[in-house]
């Protein structure tokens, strides 16, 4: 039997890596991928809690999370394609029209 | 409405499928050349030339060189010589009679030009070989009788078998078993 803390630490490490990706990378596609990593880390901890608390809620929420993630990716990539058409760039710091 | 129904019930697709199934089950047309069968051409076929002899075995060719003149690709070389030994029908026979098969286009003008019906196009069509020597048909080769006799009616697929020898690959026909190919 694997203790709960193992899963939580794994989830935490992946979460941190995801946050690092979002904060550090310039490429929006990589940023979106890092968001997916964060979603996944949350899923791991949800399922782990659900398993150890013998409750179904966590698992069901994973289903919802996955659905939301799929929707998010579809819309996010659509926005990305639209932005790329306008600006010809996918680097976050070059998309700074709103700053000025 | 019927169009719509047709689309729903995949009528066109089913028609196509049934057609191909019919083809799949019917007999194939393939001639299994060279392993088992071979196409025997009609008598009018223009293949490798032959030099004919008359009933007494004399060469019909009188080396008039009309064939060489008529040849559009200038592939026939004829050198005449005198001879009184009765090899030919006249006292003039060909010393050299050579056809360059690489250049020949099998048009049959030589046949038309020949006044003595000495040169005729035969039914041999397997002319490929490993060296360039056989691209030249000399008099001896042209005089030798061809595998398929002239009077044999063509337009059949005949049994044949592939032979691998040192000289090359040959397809030996078996004239006794023939069938219409269609």
């Amino acid at each position, binding site marked *: 039997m694997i203790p709960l803390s193992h899963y939580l630490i794994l989830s935490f490490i992946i979460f941190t890596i995801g946050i690092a990706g979002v904060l550090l990378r310039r490429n929006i596609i990589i940023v979106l991928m890092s968001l997916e990593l964060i979603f996944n880390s949350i899923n791991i901890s949800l399922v782990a809690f659900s398993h150890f608390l013998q409750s179904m809620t966590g698992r069901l929420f994973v289903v919802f999370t996955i659905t939301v993630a799929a929707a998010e990716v579809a819309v996010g990539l659509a926005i990305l394609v639209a932005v790329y058409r306008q600006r010809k760039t996918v680097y976050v710091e070059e998309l700074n029209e709103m700053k000025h | 409405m019927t169009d719509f129904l047709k689309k729903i019930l995949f009528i066109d*697709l089913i028609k*196509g*499928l049934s*057609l*191909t*199934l019919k*083809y*799949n*089950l*019917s007999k*194939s*047309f*393939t001639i*299994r050349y060279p*392993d088992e069968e071979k196409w025997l051409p009609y008598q009018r076929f223009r293949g490798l030339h032959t030099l004919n002899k008359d009933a007494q075995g004399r060469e019909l060719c009188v080396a008039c060189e009309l064939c060489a003149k008529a040849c559009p690709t200038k592939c026939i070389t004829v050198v005449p010589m005198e001879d009184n030994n009765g090899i030919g029908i006249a006292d003039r026979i060909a010393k050299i009679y050579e056809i360059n098969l690489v250049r020949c286009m099998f048009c049959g003008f030589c046949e038309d030009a020949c006044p003595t019906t000495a040169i005729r196009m035969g039914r041999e069509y397997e002319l490929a070989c490993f060296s360039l020597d056989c691209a030249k048909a000399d008099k001896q080769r042209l005089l030798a009788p061809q595998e398929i006799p002239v009077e044999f009616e063509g337009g059949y697929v005949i049994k044949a078998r592939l032979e691998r020898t040192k000289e090359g690959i040959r397809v030996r026909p078996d004239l006794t078993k023939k069938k219409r190919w269609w």
Partner: protein
Amino acid sequence: MDTNTCIELALIIIKVIIISSLLFALPIPLTWIERKVAGHIQLRLGPFRVGWHGILQPVADMIKLMFKEDIIPDKADKWLFKLAPIISLVPIFLTFATVPVGDKITVFGKEVTLYISDMNVGILYILAVAGIGVYGLILGGWASNSKYALFGSIRSSAQMISYELALSFAAIGVVMVTNSLSLVDIVNSQKATTWNICYQPLGFIIYIIAGLAEINRIPFDLSEDEGTLAAGYHVEYSSMRFSFFMLAEYVAMVLMSVLAVVLFFGGWSGPILPPIVWFVIKVSAFIYFFMWVRFTFPRYRYDQLMTIGWKILLPLSLVNILITGLFLI
């Protein structure tokens, strides 16, 4: 570990070895059969010279492929280029872990199941893992650094997204009828009543069309369209890497036939003959059908493909689910 678990483990390993070697060997006769079917449909004979009726032709082809030079384009992404054929091959083999060939049989007084494992999410697992196989196409096409290959991979990715939905919805219809995601349960429930094709004719049609698109066969093989894309995603591949793609394609065809049999045609159930024979007969009938279709229909245009996928198959499969649900209530 006691002896019983050891025997179980050994059995599983033996089954894995048998199934995977069978799958590796299967494309050899299948290529021959496909060429023969192609020949006879076109009133030809097909391969005839190597062995009896050309039966050794695939072996000759295999030897030829093995000894060909393995070319990797200079500007290709070497790492992905080498990885792509393996990615396309492995998932399709993995799917066979849950494919049931028959029910239990008794060997030396011990019950042996004719499937590696009976997952309770079997059908989902198969559809999900089979979906990974498309990465081989996508990454291979991208890594080749060639225009044709890139277009092939873009096409296959779009095609895969649009047809996998319809395919899984068609399978969901069956799941609703039989109340189980496990393939063994699906077959057993069909034994009790009739074949699922009677309840799900629309689902079956959708399944076959979407399945054809999913395994990239004519009339939907837009990703390797010879006419416009030379050979699509595998245009730069040669030698064994190319044969991996071919292998994956044939195994995918076998998978689609097996799934069609299991989902809609009662799996191994049938009168008189032993179950495994029935299974083989049904699967080979489907394989023949796929070949038959291949040499009958011309390839669809790309916009037609997308129209069929999104505007016809997807709504139809939803309607199918709705009707099934209404009947179940």
